[in-house]
């Protein structure tokens, strides 16, 4: 789930409808984006609890989506360690786990560490078999905002002519990847058909692109990490959310949700959202 396309469309709409605010240096994207997770606690709470706001429910998407709630690593693990492991696996890795176990959240958490390691990232989210590009693309021909939904056939066509590789043989052009490796992130890799997966892995091999994917089960790509969140982690996450927005949800509710949904943290949050709403409206 991502708000980025929405924000871009809002920005475009605003610039179109209000040309006076669309001038260079006057209208900026920064005012449109939702507050970052780090600054959310500092925001002033609404004047009255009767006003609809995100502060009404700590389990709303804005608090629980990937990126808003940081991934919790097991003891001794961290983003840097995983990036090192990915490098040791020749930049091929799969984050494996069941639905709602935090695969997308981990992918978002790894992004800054990968960029710090010198990776140039192109990420895709696969939903209903269609890959949607997110973030800065490799290629200048790949225009963000105008061609959002792409197929991997397009990726193959567009990823090959890297701006620096146009005038020299490809193996030399990718020699710089020791310092600046191009890495493809795919959220929902196993939703692709086998043929597209085959083409993609061949493309990555041929172009010496890194590939980091999320999937529900083991793949031919070596597993980077396997996620299985337990009750203790869920309790920690709920406590973290409750510290931002108060809730009357108790440990019994968390235990009951966990008993119903197991390690599907996303469904647990949805269930707790409903429980919180029921309690709130009952009061």
């Amino acid at each position, binding site marked *: 789930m991502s708000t980025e396309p929405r924000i871009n469309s809002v920005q475009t709409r605003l610039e179109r409808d209000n040309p006076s605010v669309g001038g260079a240096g006057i209208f900026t994207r920064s005012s449109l984006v939702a507050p970052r997770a780090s600054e959310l606690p500092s925001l002033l709470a609404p004047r009255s609890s009767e006003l609809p706001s995100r502060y009404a429910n700590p389990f709303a998407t804005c608090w629980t989506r990937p990126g808003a709630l940081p991934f919790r690593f097991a003891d001794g693990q961290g983003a840097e360690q995983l990036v090192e492991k990915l490098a040791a696996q020749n930049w091929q890795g799969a984050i494996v786990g069941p639905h709602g176990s935090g695969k997308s959240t981990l992918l978002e958490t790894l992004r800054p560490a990968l960029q710090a390691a010198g990776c140039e990232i192109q990420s895709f989210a696969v939903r209903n078999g269609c890959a949607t590009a997110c973030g800065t693309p490799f290629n200048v021909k790949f225009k963000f905002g105008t061609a959002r939904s792409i197929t991997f056939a397009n990726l193959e066509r567009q990823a090959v002519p890297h701006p620096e590789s146009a005038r020299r043989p490809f193996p030399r052009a990718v020699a710089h990847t020791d310092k600046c490796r191009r890495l493809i992130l795919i959220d929902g890799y196993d939703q692709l058909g086998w043929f597209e997966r085959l083409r993609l892995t061949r493309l990555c091999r041929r172009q010496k692109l890194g590939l980091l994917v999320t999937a529900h089960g083991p793949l031919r790509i070596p597993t980077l990490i396997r996620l299985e969140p337990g009750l203790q982690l869920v309790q920690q996450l709920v406590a973290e959310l409750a510290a931002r927005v108060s809730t009357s949800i108790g440990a019994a509710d968390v235990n009951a949700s966990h008993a119903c949904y197991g390690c599907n943290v996303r469904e647990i949050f*949805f269930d707790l959202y409903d429980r919180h709403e029921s309690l709130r409206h009952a009061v």
Partner: protein
Amino acid sequence: MTPSSIRLTLDAPTAHYQAGERLTGRYMVEGTQAWSARAAELSVLWYTAGKGEEDMAVHHFERLVDEPARPLDLRVPRRFATVLPASPLSYDGQIVKVCWCVRVRLFLPHGQESVAETAFRLGNVPAARNEEPEMRSEERELGARSEERGARNVD
């Protein structure tokens, strides 16, 4: 500068407005380093909050920039005003909420930012009611009736 030093107030004490009504207010920054802000942005916007996809749109936007010719001193209260649109109206639903707010974002030196937000209500759409307790009471009545019928049949 601490984030709470932004003071953002709406003129209407109830923070309740109608479509087409004029929303007015003011904001200022308290503290000795108020002068150090490089820019300030004010947005009147709506967003959705709930279980699913999120949406948002900015209705009103203004940006103040610190320039040599016009230094930005936010210790002086800045007023803002905008006429509110006909939709979307505020809604406090169980699955989704439509929320309106005024947001001020300060751009400070070294890439730091500070944000303050004040919510308000647009329109009179009533909040969603929790049907569950009523359903439960109905279920109890139905259950009691069926028990009565069962008892009569036995008699």
